[in-house]
């Protein structure tokens, strides 16, 4: 039973019998159900960028089209991804039953609240002019505040889900919620720019957007560096997670896509654009930067899930 095999099914089974750190094989691509388990990663990604897009679109750039796309990504994209992941999707309603202790229940309730508030806030601007409020009225502003608060919770709850797993030391850190939150906001900025551009409009304050993006990218880079240093200084299991992130095939996703393509290149583009480039070249560079940021966002979530290792169940004292 302890011998490894070439078939992937047996390799996963072997993971159950390992004496050292065990890889979690439940969440993310390459899990027990291969590609299907990747839908959970997609749900986390879509929830983050959708909620982020709503916040960025309504708060900074006042784009109704982009805000609607953001809400749709959460309401449709995240929901469908969750349903595709579940083993028994017909019982999905049961997921809301234990918010007192389960972060999954809390997160899905945040999601419903966000969609309700955001849809109500946007209603007057998308053809429901009969509603007794406008986006600028006091009630409209109250709805917007509710949507912003619940969107923030949607962005951050994935981090709490991972941080609540005590035996996976690379997840069980207070860095997870701010890391997921910052990535979600940056993803929102990227999605806003791409949506507005795709709709044939122009963002009036491209400079402000680049500045916001540069601040977010710098924060994300700092958080990733702290995360790496934290793992290096933590338990043997966390160090093994770090070794997987930087010394195995996973390094392509973590270093190549998440850090270099998803963080450093957009950071260089952001500063370069601020200093020199104007006009069409700047817009093309910005669009490329947004696509790279989104790829980096998906990649870092994938890397974090894949590098999740359980602490060995026993120590040498036995």
């Amino acid at each position, binding site marked *: *039973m*302890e011998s490894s095999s070439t078939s992937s*099914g047996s390799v*996963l*089974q072997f993971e*159950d*019998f*390992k*004496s050292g750190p*065990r890889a*979690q094989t*439940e*969440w993310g691509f390459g899990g*027990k*159900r291969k590609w299907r388990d990747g839908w959970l990663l997609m749900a986390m990604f879509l929830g983050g960028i959708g909620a982020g897009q709503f916040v960025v679109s309504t708060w900074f750039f006042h784009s109704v089209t982009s805000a609607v796309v953001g809400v749709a990504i959460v309401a449709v994209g995240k929901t469908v991804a969750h349903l595709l*992941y*579940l*083993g*028994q*999707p017909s*019982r*999905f309603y*049961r*997921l*809301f*039953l*234990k918010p007192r*202790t*389960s*972060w*999954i*229940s809390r997160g*899905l309730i945040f999601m419903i609240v966000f969609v309700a508030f955001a849809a109500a806030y946007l209603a007057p601007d998308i053809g429901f002019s009969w509603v007794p409020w406008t986006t600028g009225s006091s009630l409209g502003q109250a709805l917007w505040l509710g949507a912003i608060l619940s969107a923030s919770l949607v962005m951050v709850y994935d981090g709490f*889900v991972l941080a*609540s*797993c*005590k*035996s*996976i030391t690379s997840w069980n850190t207070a860095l997870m919620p701010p890391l997921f939150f910052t990535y979600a906001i940056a993803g929102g900025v990227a999605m806003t720019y791409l949506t507005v551009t795709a709709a044939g409009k122009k963002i009036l304050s491209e400079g402000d957007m680049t500045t916001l993006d540069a601040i977010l990218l710098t924060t994300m880079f700092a958080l990733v560096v702290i995360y790496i240093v934290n793992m290096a200084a933590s338990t043997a299991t966390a160090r093994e997670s770090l070794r997987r992130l930087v010394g195995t095939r996973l390094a392509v996703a973590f270093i190549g896509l998440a850090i270099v393509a998803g963080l450093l290149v957009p950071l260089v583009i952001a500063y370069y654009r601020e200093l020199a480039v104007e006009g069409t070249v700047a817009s093309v560079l910005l669009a490329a930067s947004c696509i790279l940021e989104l790829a980096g966002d998906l990649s870092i979530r994938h890397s974090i899930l894949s590098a*999740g290792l*359980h*602490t060995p*169940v*026993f120590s*040498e*004292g*036995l």
Partner: protein
Amino acid sequence: MVIDLKRCTSCHSCTVACKAEHHTPPGVFWAKVVRLESGKYPTVVRQALPLLCMNCKEPECEKVCPTGATKKRPDGIVIVDSKQCVGCRYCAVACPYGARNFSSDWTDYFTGEKKPSSEFAAHSKKKWMKESDKGVVSKCNFCVDRVEKGLKPACVNACPTEARTFGDLDDPESEVSQLIKKRRGMQLHPEYGTDASVYYLPAR
């Protein structure tokens, strides 16, 4: 439950007895034995460690379960109601002991297909689908049906070296309580605060 590591020979009888009792499909191991090698020559130690659900008094799986499918009975046994489980697998990720198993579908042990290849396989499938289900999480329940009938769990019954002892931890006079007291029984990962109900008696 108390497991004497000095007695365990890693024969996997517990694993097989559990499979025979619960008809778990391939890849699902409610009871298993892992081996550890430690030390350096000439003081190398090879140790077998039987693992199963620790049926914790403060179970992480019960806390994180969003549906309420994981429940703790008054007698301390942690059970999964497969009809309430949605297969989100938060419990499997949160369990520090790797005790939870997800089975996306029943498959035959010999053909690997969903269609049973023999009458016995058909019986296994029927029992598994009735007691657990596809697309849900399952785990050791200390053979709750046997315990309710006054029998020992299948793994305890099958262990040829009598390494396993089952009893009431709340009774200070019970055999398990006495063993823990006399032989300094220990829990796995007490630092997580799960207060596991499976104790291990040290091999040395």
